């Protein structure tokens, strides 16, 4: 079994949880000088770890470690809009890496790329001209959190193809490395007026089955949805869940029909309903759902889980992990049937990703 690292972004720096057996875990950190860290990823090709962070004082940067956290550098060289553009960057929200290309999504919405492992950056796209882009810079139109580009996901085989979520606007796909974009929101629900037919949807989290390129799932502000054609159309699969709202989602590494979500109270609290912690699983692509709460706190657990804060490893019997807004990390090594708390007293958790270290 490879060494497993959980890469954890928190409001006060990055942390690693490390294990050789998924039973005992060692915590390392905080890294990144306690900056708010929105997303931490591992590039299996180069071995580098990247963290998207934004300090109240010192601005945004992408941190990099090439020795699994022993030492770090940081750079924002090139992560800036022209001073005369009227656009400013408040944070770097999300990262993606593929085939030597490192992308960071920022707010105001834009995507910057690095071809030298995060040392220098250049603007790749602002999705200018896409429906909704004429208004999404206006702070009065931005949803809380101000994430801008809230997620990026590369295609596994084609480095020119990736998906981007514009927070509060919707999902977009490019097949020519951001030269052109196509909104991918057909079939989604919106319980509010929209100015454009193709956008105006609140996509919280997009995931894709590792064993079926056409199978995607998304947790939306209103409902869970499934796509069987790589995001071209969506079907709602909310029925059976306790709420339609949530952020985190994860796919099973071997089963295209298995998928995990953490429903939250859709009000302003955005915590697990009635203080009972639970993950929900479908094994039939959303036709039915099972509540998984063995080992999770069942009273007074008013915890939230953010969009990047659940991850799954790729072991034969996959392990699932999620981190909470109150600094706990929970793990399951039996596909979600039972859970154990593996860390506590961390700062509020923004993201968890799994790195398998051979």
């Amino acid at each position, binding site marked *: 079994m490879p060494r497993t690292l959980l890469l954890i972004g928190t409001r006060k720096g990055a942390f690693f949880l490390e294990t050789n057996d998924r039973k005992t875990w060692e915590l390392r950190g905080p890294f990144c*000088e306690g900056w708010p860290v929105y997303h931490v990823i591992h590039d299996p090709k180069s071995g580098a770890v990247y963290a998207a962070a934004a*300090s*109240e*004082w*010192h*601005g945004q*940067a992408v941190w990099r470690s090439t020795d699994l956290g022993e030492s770090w550098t*940081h*750079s*924002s*060289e090139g992560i*800036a*809009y*022209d*001073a005369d553009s009227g656009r*400013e960057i408040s944070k770097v929200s999300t990262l993606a890496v593929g085939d030597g290309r490192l992308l960071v999504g920022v707010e105001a919405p834009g995507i910057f790329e690095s071809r030298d492992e995060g040392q220098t950056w250049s603007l790749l796209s602002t999705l200018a001209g896409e429906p909704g882009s004429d208004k999404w810079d206006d702070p009065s139109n931005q949803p809380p959190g101000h994430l801008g580009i809230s997620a990026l996901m590369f295609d596994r085989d084609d480095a020119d193809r990736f998906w981007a979520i514009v927070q509060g606007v919707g999902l977009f796909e490019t097949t020519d490395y951001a030269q052109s974009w196509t909104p991918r929101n057909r079939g989604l629900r919106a319980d509010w007026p929209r100015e454009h037919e193709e956008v105006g949807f609140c996509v919280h989290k997009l995931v894709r089955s590792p064993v079926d390129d056409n199978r995607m799932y998304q947790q939306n502000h209103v409902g869970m949805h499934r796509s069987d054609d790589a995001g071209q159309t969506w079907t709602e699969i909310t029925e059976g869940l306790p709420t339609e709202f949530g952020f985190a989602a994860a796919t099973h590494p071997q089963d295209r029909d298995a998928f995990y979500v953490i429903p939250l109270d859709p009000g302003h609290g955005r915590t697990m309903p009635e203080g009972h912690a639970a993950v929900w699983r479908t094994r039939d692509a959303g036709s039915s759902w099972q509540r998984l709460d063995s080992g999770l706190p069942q009273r007074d657990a008013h915890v939230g889980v953010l969009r990047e804060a659940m991850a799954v490893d790729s072991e034969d019997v996959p392990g699932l992990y999620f981190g909470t807004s109150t600094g706990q990390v929970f793990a399951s090594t039996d596909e979600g049937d039972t859970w154990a708390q593996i860390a506590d007293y961390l700062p509020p958790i923004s993201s968890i990703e799994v790195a398998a270290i051979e």
Partner: protein
Amino acid sequence: MADVRLPSTLAPLFPGLPRQLDVQAATVSDVIDHLEREWPGIRDRLCEPGPTLRRHIHVYVNSERAKIDTPLAKQSRVDVIAAISGG
């Protein structure tokens, strides 16, 4: 020669960066230029495009709030402060 004092939050980001140093500079901008030459990337930690000072980075020249183009006298003291913010 300006007597430049830097915030504690900056030193861990740049190996070898002291909390205090003497800089030959005619303006606050010159001080930042000097720092950038010695510790590449430090400008981004202090300035936004323009450049202007970041919102929560305050600079005082001889105890007076300064801007990036504020001139320095021969013996100015320059305090760079990470303003109290956040939680």
